[in-house]
């Protein structure tokens, strides 16, 4: 589905990512975890082509997409749920969903798409005439997910969905993401909440300082001392767990 080869990204002269190589298989849920400022959002924005890269290449279903603009990525079935949601806050819930299916191929399925989103998030149907900026944080994140689903993507890029949400809402949201994945969606998830990311992902990349430092299945990573100490706050020395 998605393949990233030796991707380099920099902001001006300041390099942010060095030689990132990773894959997301069809129907796979892959998580990228790492501390603040590690370059996770840079990575996902670069894959969505809203941020240019300096070196390396990005491939989608065997086709190189490195030189394409973000609109073309949308046409090819990649939908981004950006960090901080970034809804069209002055527009209504329904209008935000309609922007999700702006691309002509998705527009044909506007009605079914909207029914599906309202089925997953009934609250959005209730609030469909409300201005998006007046929704609660959790509802806004639901709308951001809904907007992405409206694009009928093959690959969902999810950036830090738990940001600013309560643990309960986060848990509900991850149940939904899990379900969307179970229905066959390929997903690349970026998450600071490592415990929850390891819980849902099939494969994980750990990014630190703009480089991939380790990768593997969640249970293998959970077995490593670095992950348990640095991300799960366990004191391995003391032999807890």
């Amino acid at each position, binding site marked *: 589905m998605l393949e990233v080869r030796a991707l380099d990204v920099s902001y001006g002269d300041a390099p942010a990512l060095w030689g990132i190589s990773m894959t997301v298989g069809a129907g796979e849920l892959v998580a990228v975890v790492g501390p603040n400022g590690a370059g996770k959002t840079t990575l996902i924005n670069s894959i*969505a*082509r*809203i941020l240019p890269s300096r070196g390396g290449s990005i491939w989608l279903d065997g086709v190189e997409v490195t030189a394409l*603009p*973000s*609109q073309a*990525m*949308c*046409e090819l079935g990649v*939908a*981004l749920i*950006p960090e901080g949601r*970034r809804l*069209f*806050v*002055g*527009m209504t819930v329904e*209008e935000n969903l*309609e*922007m*999700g299916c*702006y*691309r002509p191929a998705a*527009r044909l399925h506007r009605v079914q798409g909207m029914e599906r989103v309202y089925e997953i998030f009934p609250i959005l149907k209730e609030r469909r005439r409300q201005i998006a900026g007046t929704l609660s944080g959790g509802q806004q994140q639901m709308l951001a997910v809904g*907007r992405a689903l409206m*694009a009928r993507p093959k690959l969902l890029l999810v950036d830090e969905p738990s940001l600013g949400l309560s643990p309960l809402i986060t848990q509900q949201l991850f149940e939904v993401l899990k379900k969307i994945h179970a229905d066959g969606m390929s997903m690349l998830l970026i998450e600071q909440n490592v415990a929850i990311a390891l819980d849902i992902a099939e494969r994980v990349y750990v990014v630190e300082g703009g480089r991939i430092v380790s990768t593997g299945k969640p249970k293998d990573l959970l077995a490593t001392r670095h992950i348990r100490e640095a991300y799960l706050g366990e004191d391995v020395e003391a032999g807890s767990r």
Partner: protein
Amino acid sequence: MPSASLLAQSILSGILIGGLYTLLGLGLSLSWRFLQVINLAHFAFVFLAAYLSYQLIGVAGLNPGLALLILLPIFFLIGIALQYLLIRFSVNEFASLLVTFGILVLLETLIQWIWSADFRRLETSYGTASIKIGAIYVPIVECLMFFVAVIVAVVTWAWLKFTYVGKALRASAENPIIAGAYGVNHKRLAYLIAGISGATAAIAGVFIALISTLAPAQVVVWLGVVFAAVILGGLGNPLGLLVASLVIGVSEAITMAVTAPTWAPLVSFTLLIAILILRPHKV
């Protein structure tokens, strides 16, 4: 106090001039909101259109409707050409104010060079025609201008509100990067809205030629009041602009009737300053 009929006549002319403010302000409002271009040159486009109408209607003897049909595509293209230049030289919002002011001065000079600084008046049989209803004279061309302004404002509003293109424009104005990631081609839409803004200058120009005396120095006469209407109405909000134009037009007219014409500008700018103090986030 003025008499009741004078007051009624003033209110009517205030409403009708509000139509003109709407036509003048629409292009400004759209390009400001959706292109981040504060297009002062728009006022010069309007007068260029007015002088061309004078030429087409008064000299070549064309029907005003036909003149408008000729001018609409021309000014659509002029709007696009300006947008091309602004993108080509990556002019930002603030710089656009300076650049388009420069273009305004250039065009004013061009108009003066072609048509001289003398007053030009389009003499038509219908230009000053009016019907008398009770004690009030209702000027026909200005009524037509008012109805055209209402129709143009309502259609533009509905277009922005209900169509995919309109929604894409609003989404793009809020967040161009994310709108782009959902397939919105901002550049293409920008040219469209620039063209539409330009075309509205043609509509305003034809009516100004029909109802007013033309002189190059007139170019900036409505600048202040139209700015006030655009800001009061909310950027990119055609219906808001219409209402604001009517409020300003009518309050100006009443001020003129009650005090003296020289006090009229006080109204629009008092309203503008009040709104900037009370609701600055709206601007």
